[in-house]
């Protein structure tokens, strides 16, 4: 799983028939410092994420398969909308 920022949407009238009715978002994968890395990615969404949202994306294709059927050619699905990302306590903080 990884975090991504949603930067846009996409429409496609010609597509694999199993993707009919699916909402597509365009986003970019986020690094720890908030910068983006890699090429823009297309995610399948049914959580209503909007532009500017930070989302949790899973690349486990079984989610898409359970949702849209066995033969669906899809992998990246929005599985959560991020509220906040905070610091993880270091070892010494946990001891006290």
């Amino acid at each position: 799983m990884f975090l991504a920022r949603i930067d846009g949407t996409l429409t496609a009238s010609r597509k694999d028939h199993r993707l009919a009715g699916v909402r597509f978002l365009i986003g970019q994968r986020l690094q720890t410092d908030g910068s983006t890395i890699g090429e823009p990615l297309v995610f399948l969404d049914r959580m209503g994420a909007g532009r500017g949202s930070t989302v949790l994306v899973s690349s486990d294709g079984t989610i898409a398969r359970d949702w849209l059927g066995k033969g669906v050619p899809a992998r990246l699905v929005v599985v959560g909308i991020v509220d906040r990302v905070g610091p993880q306590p270091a070892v010494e903080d946990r001891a006290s």
Partner: protein
Amino acid sequence: MRLGIVRGRVVLSRSLPSLRGTSLLLVEPVSAANLAARNGRGGGKTLVVADQLSPAAGQMIALVEGSEAANPYPAPTPVDAYCALIVNDYTFQPPEAADRSAAEGRR
């Protein structure tokens, strides 16, 4: 899925039996800077994508990668990239700072 521009097609003289009849596209993935600029350019490493939708040269597609790319084929197929859709239209407006760092990253 990544986005890519169709640059051509690939025809094999010999292939594994499981690949026979599979249409293959030559596709150039699109970088963030080029997607934002809407300049028809790709910029990524060219790859070969299995296809059943027949997009024209210059059209933008979304391609699934990994084992899920073979999902549409009933029998096991050695395909790891598949054209899932042809893009009609898109919006892509990264915040300005990210836009700048993405552009710099590609140079």
